[in-house]
């Protein structure tokens, strides 16, 4: 059984190494083709709303994402409490 595990680990290591080379190459190429896109609009338009562009993005253009972000914090808190035993469902099976 242990030899099987060794083969498994070796295969996983080799494949991860190949993947890391691939990912590094992709990221190396991506540094040449970055496109600002919609950020230009934010920089041109956002100054009329608030001085800090990141704030403008978070709380105005993408405020709904931020709602999701705060909900996810709340969910995490509730799930942690749930795991520690508050509000579990009754029947033990």
């Amino acid at each position, binding site marked *: 059984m242990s030899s099987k595990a060794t083969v498994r680990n070796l295969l996983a290591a080799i494949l991860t190494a190949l993947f890391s080379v691939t990912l590094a190459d992709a990221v190396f190429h991506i540094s040449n083709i970055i496109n600002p896109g919609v950020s230009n609009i934010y920089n041109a338009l956002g100054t009329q709303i608030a001085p800090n562009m990141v704030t403008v993005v978070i709380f105005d253009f993408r405020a709904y994402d931020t709602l999701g972000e705060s909900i996810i914090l709340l969910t995490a808190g509730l*799930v942690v409490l749930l795991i520690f035993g508050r509000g579990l469902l009754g029947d033990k099976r």
Partner: protein
Amino acid sequence: MNELIPLMVIVPLMAALLISAFSRFNTVTKIFAFVVAICLPIIPIASNYGLHYFGGYEPMLDNVTNVMFHPAITYSFTFLQQIFIAMVGLLTFLVIFIYLTKYKEVSGPYLFLLFLGTAAVTAMLLTDDIFHMFVFFEILALAQVGIVAASSISYSNEMALKYMILGSIGSPMMLLGIGFLLAMTGSVNITDIAAAVHNGLVDATSPVFLMSLALIFFGWLYASGLPPFHTIKSGIYSKAEPHGAALLQSFTVISMISIVLVMFRIYSTLPIFEVLIVFFSILAMILGVSLALTQTDFRRMIGFLAVGELGFIGLGIGLGTQYSITAGLFQALNEITITALLFIGFGAIVNATNEVDTRKLGGLLAYHPKVSIMLLIGGLAMAGVPPLSGFQSKLMLVQASLSCGYPEISILAIVVSIATFVVFVKTYYSMFLKPKPNDLDVEHKEVPRAMIFAMGILLIIVIAFGVYPDVVTNGISNFVGGIL
């Protein structure tokens, strides 16, 4: 009334927050949850089709590059979204109804998670923004973990942790893929990205673009529980309460189709994309059904069957014609109802016998004839027997693959349907028809009325879709024509 579009997400979110805050007041919480749950399927039906721009920011023209951009999050609401949101809303209503009648003391966090999951899948279906989809996908993952961890079934915490660890590899990869797309197009709006790809602003054959496909595809595999994640998905279903599992599988199906439609809009120019989807779908069908045949725990068995059925949806989308995508999406709708019916029905059996091992069950036909007949019809629908809804969608899939020139896929789909039927008949036999083992004590209590009611409603939908499939397929076909 386009103001109703964001309400589809906001109503369950707010309900979740209020319930978790005021869960001490038992009766009030119950009534409130019931009322909100009734509203969930009604809102999408009452709403009009259209787009909703958050903050009122309409698409703008970049003066420098002359490209249209959507600066804010956009929701688009069409027939496809309407039918799926109404279906998941109805399912949430039924599940919450079952839950409220089963337990005297409501658990605030659990109701919170049920509503939150519904809100998350609704947002995933509606949104036209890939990062927004990722945010709600993470909320959905946490809600699923919570639903599993809440269910005091032995080893449920272990399964939840495994799901989280695998998810924490899957979803950052998806985020990385979204980052690649963001770097190349400068936008996270799907319409903008698709326009950039189709107008040639992004080189669709560049390896970097293909890498983003690989990363998002891996995230999709995790989201939909296709191989290699089929074991964990079926495990998750088996460790949740049966009515919770009925909702969990609908979340899986909806996150699968919403992400795959996004990928389809962006990557459909690449021939490799469709090959990949068909490959993983066939793998899911083979592995899911062959593992379902070897299970003795019937919750696990339906879990694997649900994974196998996901393969049909993937096949429909992978074939890539208008007819086949319509068939795949119709199959998704049918799978939500049928699998929910099976989970709720088997949940009734768990409720009556406290037993999940098929070897220790038997002779239940005499005790619960109503449940057994409804389950039989559900199983026949899943295997694709006319005139039920599963038959219509599978027939469409077989025809679609024949007309695409892949008769092997048609034969494979039929073989998988037959094997699905074998799985179901085997389980049905050992639960209902086999003589009752002596040591099995069936509690002489009625199956909860709420469960019978829920199964009846789902059964009506299954039969209605089977007899009149055109009601749904015409609308879906129009939607598909729009994205092709």
